[in-house]
């Protein structure tokens, strides 16, 4: 269980998060929606340990991880698919996937087959440098790389960006599959409304660093939310 409790975050003098709270439970998909620049990415960065928060707390599996180093959070079972892919450009696809091994016990250091089932193109390109892949291929690699870590919390920042329609469907199915397995909490930031709605259990809408609306999927009113996402 991830609990974000009234988190504040500043970039220099500018405040990017204002008292943000949310929870993400195993077996569920929690989504965050919002227009450009409202702080979605910032929120995820604070959870995975890329930005330090200036107020509030972040708890994961009962432990306060607000001040924990990023690599220890990864060790605690948090994996992320960042916005902008952040592939290691000079490592091959194979090596990119293997960077996830460092938190696994020796015996388990193997790329799960489901990664290649979901993204067959990665298997074809194992020897190619990550930086040479096309944008969509890189996005697939970024998701695959996070799956290698066998996380208990998977944080996805706009994972469908730049991906072809058929693969988006596959990703949707994969997220649903992971959710249904029940041992993984999934936190998803999306702009693509239909995709988010189809997958989510709970949703949050952000506006200027705050959560202005939250609820379960059943409570999701398309009109209202689309309205919040336009200026």
């Amino acid at each position, binding site marked *: 269980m991830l609990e974000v409790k009234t988190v504040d975050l500043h970039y220099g003098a500018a405040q990017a998060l204002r008292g943000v709270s949310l929870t993400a439970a195993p077996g569920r998909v929690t989504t965050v929606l919002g227009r450009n620049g409202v702080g979605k990415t910032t929120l995820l960065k604070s959870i995975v340990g890329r930005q330090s928060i200036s107020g509030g707390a972040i708890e994961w599996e009962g432990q306060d991880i607000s001040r924990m180093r990023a*690599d220890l959070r990864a060790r605690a079972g948090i994996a992320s698919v960042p916005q902008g892919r952040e592939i290691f450009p000079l*490592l091959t696809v194979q090596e990119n996937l293997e960077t996830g091994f460092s938190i696994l016990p020796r015996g388990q250091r193997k790329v799960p087959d489901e990664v290649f089932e979901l993204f067959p193109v990665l298997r074809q390109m194992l020897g190619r440098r990550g*930086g*040479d892949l096309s944008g969509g291929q890189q996005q697939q690699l970024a998701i695959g790389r996070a799956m290698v870590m066998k996380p208990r919390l998977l944080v996805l920042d706009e994972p469908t960006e730049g991906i072809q329609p058929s693969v988006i469907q596959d990703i949707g199915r994969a997220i649903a599959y992971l959710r249904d397995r029940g041992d993984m909490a999934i936190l998803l930031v999306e702009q693509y409304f239909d995709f988010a709605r189809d997958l989510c259990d709970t949703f949050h809408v952000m506006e200027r660093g705050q959560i202005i609306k939250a609820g379960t999927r059943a409570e999701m009113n398309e009109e209202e939310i689309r309205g919040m996402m336009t200026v």
Partner: protein
Amino acid sequence: MALLRVLLAAAITCAASLAAAQSLEDLVATLPEGSYDDRGAVVAQIAGTGDDRALKVLESLLEGDLEVLDSNGRVVEIRSEGRDDFATDILTGEDYGEVPSRGSSRIRVNNSLRRDIRAAMGTMTLRHPDPARRLAAAQAAFRSPDPDQAELLSEALAAETDPQVAEALSRAVAVAALEGAAPEAAQLEAVAVLSEMGNTEARTILAAAAADAEGPVAEAASDAVRHIDQMQRLWGLAQNVWFGLSLGSVLLLAAIGLAITFGVMGVINMAHGELVMIGAYTTFVVQEAIRSSFPALFDWSLLIAAPLAFAVAGGVGVAIERGVVRFLYGRPLETLLATWGISLMLQQAVRSIFGPNNREVGNPSFMSGAFELGQMTVTWNRLWILVFALAVFAVLLFVLKKTPIGLQMRAVTQNRAMASNMGIRTGWVDAMTFGLGAGIAGLAGVALSQIDNVSPNLGQSYIVDSFMVVVFGGAGNIWGTLAGAFSLGIANKFLEPWTGAVLAKILVLVFIILFIQKRPRGLFAVRGRAVDA
């Protein structure tokens, strides 16, 4: 030269005839007197006495161990133990015990006298049980050919069992034959032997024979000269390649640590040279310890020093990384300022601790001397350094490409934040990577201490070349560093004979500038969309 030879020969014959007249005792007693030339004559006479003790006297004289005791005027052999000297009578073997350092005066030898002694000893040691001594004797006979000794040499040759000595003897016989009026067949045989020998010395003798002799001998000799010239051109080429490889191996060693700290990590590490220096000083300290406590281990000193140098330089590297560099990731150019500061401090630290002067690091026996490979002389230290450089390279390549830590190192330097999100302990990996680069620099220091100064300036003399090699090869690719080091080394060594060392160096620099225009990312450029984004 010829005149000298005649004189020498005369001296020896003359000595032989006088042998009866003067005893070894008398001769040794007169040894300290007169000029070097006088002493040379006495040496010849001593050799001529046929006395069993003569050889020992000459050897001791050659080594510079022969002195005259002020107290009783006896000629003694001095042994040193630490700062104390002990004397034994060279002729009677009587032990005079310890003598004060200013209580005896040395019987001086200079180069020409040493040559006389060696020539004199030569004839005496042609049948010496030690093959090394026989070899020396044969070589001495070759250098100062004497037709009168031809027979002596031939007999020795017939009795010789060691092939190396036999070869040397046959050459000595050959020159002697060409010098004197040997029968034509013998002379032709001699020409063949010398032609086989193939070096400039042989060529000089053959050229003289070609000019002096007549008929078939002259013809054979001039053919041989042509043959030698041809062979020498080929060997000259081979030699340049070897010199280039050897220079390349030095460049490789100096640069390879930097290929990690700079090439892989992107830290402009101006203190790299000082890390090399630390490795060299570690070697010095190890050798000092060995010299004073376990002299028998001296030949092992480098093997002991290598892991220590790796550890010490690596440790300093880790300290630099944790103390300074880690605050500067994302600001790579500022690492230049900080590491420059560190390099100044390290230099000064070494200067304050070890003094500003060169320190002596000796070559263990396996790294001393040279061997002949055809017409090429290959020095052992250069050969071992080449082997060592390649070994270090291989290990490094393995670590970077085949081990998990190697993968983590590359991941961290490409995207530190993402690596951290993947669960990689970036701080630890950074420290290990920098430590590895630094440790390898330390290893380079062990090797470089064998051929260069061990002084506080050591690092400064390699830093520019190291950056040049890494960048020329293509930063971030350690194969590039390998190729860069060897190609610059070979280019340099092929230019040097034509242009001299200074211009060669300038031309190599110009070449680098031009080459980079053609390949703006170095020899082994990392290409693809990943880099030019």
